[in-house]
């Protein structure tokens, strides 16, 4: 096995071009588990810890450009204001030790349907910035990024540079089902983001389909029928919940049954919409 330690982004891209089968490792919270358990023996590990710019975030063209190496702890401490949905999801990841190491880029790289970052990124309309030496930068909307169970639109010679997320213009919520309040891989999860300026609501479903996904029909329903100045109609919330559940396509596995997950998605969809709507009305009144 090779251990590659680039110290600049250019060197990292060159290393990935040279050895596309090298597995990038950031916090190691997924990759090292697979190696420790003999589930994976990549020909090379590409350590990205030394690429300092990956650990930074900045405002670029009106969006937060969050470096792929930004840890969950940093998201919680520094980005809870502009990215409340992502920060809420980050708080539910593993333990403090895991949040100190685990990164948004790592979550995107692993592309697990249960990854906690994905639903809020989908709901907020995030865009993933990837790059290769040969073809340069590609901007991939989150909704087109996830292709299958642990499969993404990332090409073998590409690395994830950052994710771009517009600062919240309305309330955002993340909800997750698990057996404890900590150290839990989602049984299923749901994220919602209100975009009052566009009269639109974004959704993200986690761990209830082969990939993280939006609920487009549920979003369309609210775009058509929500009255942004009035209390939430419970019947509309109920139909929204049904359409979110219908967008899920879960399986039975060790963490939960498919039928339970469908039910739970409906419950979380209605709850998070209600929480967000209450905040929205309170902000209008203030």
């Amino acid at each position, binding site marked *: 096995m090779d*251990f590659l*330690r680039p110290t600049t982004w250019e060197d990292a891209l060159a290393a990935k071009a040279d050895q596309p089968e090298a597995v990038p490792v950031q*916090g190691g919270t997924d990759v090292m588990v697979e190696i*420790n358990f003999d589930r994976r023996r990549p020909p090379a*590990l590409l*350590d990205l810890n030394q690429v300092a710019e990956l650990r930074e975030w900045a405002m670029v063209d009106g969006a937060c450009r969050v470096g792929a190496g930004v840890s969950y702890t940093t998201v919680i401490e520094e980005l809870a204001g502009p990215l409340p949905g992502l920060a809420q999801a980050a708080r539910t990841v593993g333990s*403090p*030790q895991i949040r100190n190491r685990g990164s948004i880029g790592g979550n995107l790289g692993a592309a697990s349907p249960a990854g906690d970052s994905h639903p809020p990124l989908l709901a907020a309309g995030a865009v993933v910035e990837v790059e290769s030496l040969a073809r340069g930068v590609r901007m991939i909307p989150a909704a087109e990024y996830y292709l299958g169970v642990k499969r993404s639109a990332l090409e073998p010679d590409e690395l994830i540079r950052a994710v771009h997320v517009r600062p919240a213009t309305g309330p955002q919520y993340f909800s997750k089902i698990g057996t404890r309040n900590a150290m839990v891989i989602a049984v299923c999860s749901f994220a919602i983001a209100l975009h009052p300026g566009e009269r639109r609501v974004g959704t993200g479903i986690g761990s209830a389909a082969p990939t993280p996904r939006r609920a487009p029909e549920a979003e369309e329903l609210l775009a058509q029928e929500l009255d942004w100045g009035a209390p939430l109609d419970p019947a509309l919330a109920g139909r929204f919940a049904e359409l979110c559940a219908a967008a899920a396509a879960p399986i039975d596995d060790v963490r939960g049954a498919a039928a339970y997950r469908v039910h739970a998605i409906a419950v979380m969809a209605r709850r998070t919409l209600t929480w967000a709507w209450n905040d929205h009305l309170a902000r209008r009144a203030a």
Partner: protein
Amino acid sequence: MRVTFTVNGREESADDVWEGESLLYVLRERLGLPGSKNACEQGECGSCTVYLDGLPVCACLVAAGQAEGRQVRTVEGLADGGRLDPVQEAFVECGAVQCGFCTPGLIVQAHDLLERVPRPSDAEIREALAGNLCRCTGYEQILDAVRLAAARKMARKTAQKMAQKKARKAD
């Protein structure tokens, strides 16, 4: 490959490290520091918690090569010579130990909490220790120990400040 990093203030090197090897393995098996414990190897139990550049992490999930040139502090590096750290003292006094396997990880994690939050609430203690599993004690004595350590550290700080003030006045 050869890996060189600073452990508890001393530069150490390990040779013939396999590229997929964890920092935990290097600490325990190559550098003779068995304080950090090896249990789950998947970041679930917290027994291998060490500081990496000042942040507590699971050493089992850090590739050894990722520690190159960095600062690692293990449970062996918390005591000041022969004098235990207040967190260690409190664990002994409160009987927050049974089989002892989870103890080093809990101590490092509690140490970090008190460095960041000198007077943590019970909720903050629980949150900080959520990733450290103990299968013996039921956690109550562990919470007692963290509370005691927090109180002692605060008392020591206050005493130090008073002594400094006195010294300044004497000048």
